[in-house]
């Protein structure tokens, strides 16, 4: 039948720079704003602190501190992104990071187990906690908010129990302290930077050439080139600046590596697709044959595992685990980072890069205000305001999306 003929309207995006711009405009129009607002926000924050601190904010010494401060909570935020993608919440990520650090400290210091074993045990405990919580949430159909609220209280008790009467345990194990105490300079740092930029740019080019070979629309070369140059310049500048002081912290490399890996999992694997589907429409996912409960349990396990690893990094930096490990603003900052970075609280929308961008924003504010010797009261209020703005942008975008979808 003649109606079976090719329909020119079913096409991929228009090629070229104009096509890219048109695609981006239509994305904004329907509420898919991407990372643009947070990048602008970050730039504004940096400029303000740069000016207010008389340049100290961008000093190599301060940048290394900023990198070290980011690593632990940023790692936790990676797990939070996955939980938010499901449209769920995990209130235990802060306290689980503290508890697992406590487990590591007790095993290493009190029981004399080697550092790597203690770290491994801490991470495995995190996975186990996540599995238990995830199973509880899915098996008994209780909202994750309630189960993890109970966990928040319960695991706090477990941390006090594990630490016992000592209260604070100081860490001296060379392996554990090296996690946050190792820095890369010179060729090693350069190689890390090249590997990172090479991966990002390389995959983009590869995808582009494969799509073109397959006769599908692809990003224009100019867009790709501009983006590559910006990323390369940013990474090179960062590594050079950090190199003027102690160097690129190993813990930052861990965080960036984790983000790259998890971004791949979220965007390009079957598991990631399942997570987005469950977060977008659980019923549609179920009817499509996706094992919804298994996906949810796996994500809670992943979040607690990330939390445990974040706790290990934090303990390594502070060289101690005490009764307040993982409490205070750790949980709030991890969730805020994911949200500020552009992950929707309503599920189904966001990227793992949100964790990195978000924690960069939060730690920049915190670090900048420390430089200006502002009171912590001001710090909290400003961080709260930034979070509110980020969530509001998400809500407005969501409304635009509903209008566009109508």
């Amino acid at each position, binding site marked *: 039948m003649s109606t079976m003929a090719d329909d020119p309207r079913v096409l991929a995006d228009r090629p070229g720079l104009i096509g890219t711009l048109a695609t981006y405009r239509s994305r904004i129009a329907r509420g898919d704003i991407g990372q643009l607002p947070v990048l602008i926000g970050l730039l504004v924050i940096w400029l303000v602190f740069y000016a207010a601190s008389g340049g100290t904010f961008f000093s190599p010494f301060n940048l290394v501190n900023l990198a070290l401060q980011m690593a632990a909570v940023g790692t936790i935020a990676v797990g939070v992104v996955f939980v938010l993608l499901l449209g769920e919440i995990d209130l235990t990520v802060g306290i689980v990071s503290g508890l697992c650090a406590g487990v590591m400290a007790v095993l290493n210091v009190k029981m004399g187990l080697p550092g790597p074993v203690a770290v491994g045990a801490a991470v495995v405990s995190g996975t186990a906690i996540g599995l238990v919580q995830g199973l509880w949430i899915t098996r008994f159909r209780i909202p994750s908010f309630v189960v993890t609220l109970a966990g928040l209280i319960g695991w706090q008790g477990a941390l006090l129990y594990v630490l016992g009467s000592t209260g604070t345990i100081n860490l001296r194990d060379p392996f554990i302290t090296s996690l946050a105490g190792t820095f890369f300079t010179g060729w090693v740092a350069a190689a890390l930077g090249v590997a990172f930029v090479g991966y990002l740019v390389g995959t983009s080019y590869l995808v582009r050439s494969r799509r073109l070979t397959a006769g599908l629309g692809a990003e224009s070369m100019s867009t790709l080139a501009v983006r590559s140059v910006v990323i390369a310049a940013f990474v090179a500048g960062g590594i050079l600046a950090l190199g003027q002081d102690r160097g690129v912290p190993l813990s930052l490399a861990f965080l960036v590596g984790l983000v790259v890996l998890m971004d791949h999992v979220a965007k390009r694997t079957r598991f990631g697709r399942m997570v987005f589907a469950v977060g977008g429409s659980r*019923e549609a996912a179920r009817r499509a044959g996706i094992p919804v409960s298994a996906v949810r349990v796996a994500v809670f396990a992943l979040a607690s595992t990330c939390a445990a690893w974040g706790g290990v990094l934090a303990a390594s930096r502070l060289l101690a685990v005490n009764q307040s490990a993982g409490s205070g603003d750790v949980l709030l900052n991890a969730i805020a980072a994911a949200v500020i970075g552009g992950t929707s609280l309503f599920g189904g929308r966001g990227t793992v890069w949100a964790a990195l961008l978000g924690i960069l924003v939060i730690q920049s504010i915190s670090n900048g205000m420390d430089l200006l010797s502002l009171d912590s009261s001001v710090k909290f209020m400003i961080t709260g305001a930034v979070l509110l703005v980020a969530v509001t942008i998400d809500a407005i975008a969501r409304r635009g999306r509903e209008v566009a*979808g109508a």
Partner: protein
Amino acid sequence: MTVERPGPLLELRGISKRFGAVQALTDVRFEVRPSEVVALVGDNGAGKSTLIKVVSGIFAADSGTILWQGAETVLHGPADAVALGISTVYQDLALADNLDVVANLFLGREVGSGGGVLATLDEISMEQRSISVLRRLSVKIPSVRTVIAALSGGQRQAVAAARSVLWENKVVLLDEPTAALGVGQTHEVLELVRRLRDDGRGVVLISHNLEDVFAVADRITVLRLGRYVGTYDAKTVTREQLVSYMTGAMPGTAEVPLPAIAAQPT
């Protein structure tokens, strides 16, 4: 002259289903052949939805047999129906709003470098196959990378139906596909129904709207109060007759046999 007519893809015989005190279906029969559109009509509570759920494996019938391409079969769940090649496009669509058209077409059956959950997705081949299936059905959407949330109701129906074509399902059940659509979109969906038929599929259309039914159906099966009333040739039955069968004003005796079978020498 004898017209070679393929046997029914799906045939139901004597299907009964009871929910507590409610006898939802009593001795219902139904069949759909390749390259035909059978409309399933009836007033509210006639048992259309229950019948669809029996066919799609959600409910097990209390009694009766289901034949798939002539062979008796038992559906233990939705997965069995899907495995046979029966796909249901639900009224509420079951698409993930936040994912694009390609992701939805392949939802749950993504093409990857391997079978594992951590296998890398082959977006290029999925996109190519999506474009080809949508072209085959002449579905008009801005781009296969558009997220579902940005599509109109008719376009969403089209994507949901395209999924059944992509997976080579032989029978496609459409549950009230035009219920929430405007005139233009309704027209597009009906056009899609015709194309599914021309593509060799057996299409079952559940609808309240007799106008839609007359527009696309080859045969019309009427249910009333959970009972089978009759199956009629859409070309000969009138709207008034159909309404009276549906409401029970006239007993359904004027059953019209399949034209091709009528042409067969006895």
